[in-house]
């Protein structure tokens, strides 16, 4: 695929001018890094960094039946969203209980919800939602907001830096709790993120996003690319769709049981399958003890049977290699296991995750 076929966000010229190393991500030409992804990672943990996440898709779900529709369609229950702007992290499942995508859903009003879905699955998700809407014959309008760009500003100084750039937005956003958003002057600002740090994700029309990016850059917020995004989310123990889960596994086998609300009689797509299907594996955190780097799809050997890594990489904060792995149910934190890297079996241990939160390691990195 030549670079001419890739989609570009409204911030593309900013990335080019900042000498970004550009790569194809889900058909978009996106910055992998702007020099050093490790520097960008540290910048987010210690100060403030920003990510162009405009490749993700915002889909508004509107109408008198919007709430009931989403209660049918998502594994988490939007009836729990009782405060304006509050959000849930949820899975979209197929009829077999397999994960089609993970997403965030905000309630804007009783008749309007906002979904943010992954770039690689956006068209699949939209088609799925349309087919469900048509089948269930609900008075629901599905509105993809393709005209919007999105910037994630993350780090201990992220919100402060945003308020310096946009003083007038402070009064509306100062009181936002985590996982809550608000509409301000044609933008949607949410206290959410994919890094394990505090911060905002700002959705806005293209020209406003460009202006915001430039103003934040002038205030010292570091542009950060997909490389840092991946190391940050892995440290924070956050799943990546397509790696840690896909349509062949259920949320229960992916560390996402907590996002599935089975507490009521609510019928939702995939519910029956989840109740019938016993999980045989679970997702666990790994810390490599021997020297090397964990990656995806490496074989894992435990006292209870085999498994494999789903996401792996290097943790700049821990200065160690970490991974998420799908392993037999009885594998527990503290277990010593082995991972096959190239042709050698290297020592690793199972640890609880997240590995890092608010800049601090949560992991005991001693070998035993």
């Amino acid at each position, binding site marked *: 695929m030549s670079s001419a076929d890739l989609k570009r966000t409204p911030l593309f010229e900013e990335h080019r001018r900042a000498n970004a190393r550009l790569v194809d991500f889900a058909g978009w030409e996106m910055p992998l*890094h702007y020099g*050093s*992804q*490790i520097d960008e990672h540290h910048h987010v943990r210690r100060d403030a960094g920003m990510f162009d996440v405009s490749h993700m898709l915002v889909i508004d779900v509107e109408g008198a039946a919007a709430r009931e529709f989403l209660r049918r369609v998502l594994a988490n229950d939007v009836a729990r969203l009782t405060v304006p702007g509050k959000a849930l992290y949820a899975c979209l499942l197929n009829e077999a209980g397999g994960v089609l995508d993970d997403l965030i859903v905000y309630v804007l009003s009783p008749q309007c919800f906002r979904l943010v879905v992954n770039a690689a699955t956006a068209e699949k998700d939209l088609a799925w939602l349309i087919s469900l809407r048509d089948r269930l014959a609900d008075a629901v309008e599905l509105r993809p907001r393709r005209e919007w760009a999105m910037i994630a500003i993350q780090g201990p100084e992220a919100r402060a830096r945003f308020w310096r750039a946009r003083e007038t937005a402070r009064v509306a956003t100062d009181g936002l709790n985590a996982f809550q958003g608000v509409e301000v002057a044609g933008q949607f600002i949410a206290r959410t993120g994919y890094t394990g740090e505090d911060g905002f994700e700002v959705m806005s029309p293209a020209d406003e996003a460009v202006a915001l990016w430039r103003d934040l850059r002038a205030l010292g917020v570091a542009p950060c690319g997909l490389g840092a995004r991946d*190391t940050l989310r892995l440290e924070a123990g956050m799943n990546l769709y397509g790696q840690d889960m896909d349509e062949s596994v259920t949320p229960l086998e992916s560390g996402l049981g907590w996002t599935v609300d089975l507490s009521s009689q609510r019928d939702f797509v995939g519910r029956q399958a989840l109740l019938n299907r016993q999980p045989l594996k679970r997702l666990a955190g790994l810390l490599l003890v021997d*020297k090397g*780097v964990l*990656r995806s799809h490496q074989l894992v050997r435990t006292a209870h049977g085999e498994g494999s890594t789903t996401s792996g*990489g*290097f943790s700049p904060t821990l200065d160690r290699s970490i991974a998420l792995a799908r392993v037999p149910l009885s594998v527990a934190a503290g277990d010593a296991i082995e991972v096959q890297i190239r042709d050698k079996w290297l020592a690793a241990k199972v640890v609880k995750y997240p590995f890092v939160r608010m800049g601090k390691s949560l992991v005991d990195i001693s070998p035993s």
Partner: protein
Amino acid sequence: MQFPAELRYTDTHEWLRQEGDGTVTVGITWHAQERLGDLVYVENPPRGKAFRKGEECGVVESVKAASDIYAPISGEVVAVNEELTSNPEKINQEPYRAWIFKLRPSDPGELQTLLDAAAYQKLIEAESH
């Protein structure tokens, strides 16, 4: 400077420097480290082991990917750079100073098969089109 003139190069992006004592020093080029990104781990070839020209003798791993290092000429490994164990990022910072290992060549004639700076530069330019 990305193509120091006094070095020799391979098409697998190693550089080689001939030392006064007959050994050669080997590392990876600016182009190699730039493509890999931030390096986090170097698996050195074992001291005392002999390799044939073109044989896999070690690995450099970045956050994004692992990449094999190939022996540019045949020989026995006589030294490895211990500094890289705790500071692999030195290769990103100074790829032509952060050497990886030294060989005692078993067939000095093989040195003729390596690329000079101009030929390596042409290779890089051709690769990026």
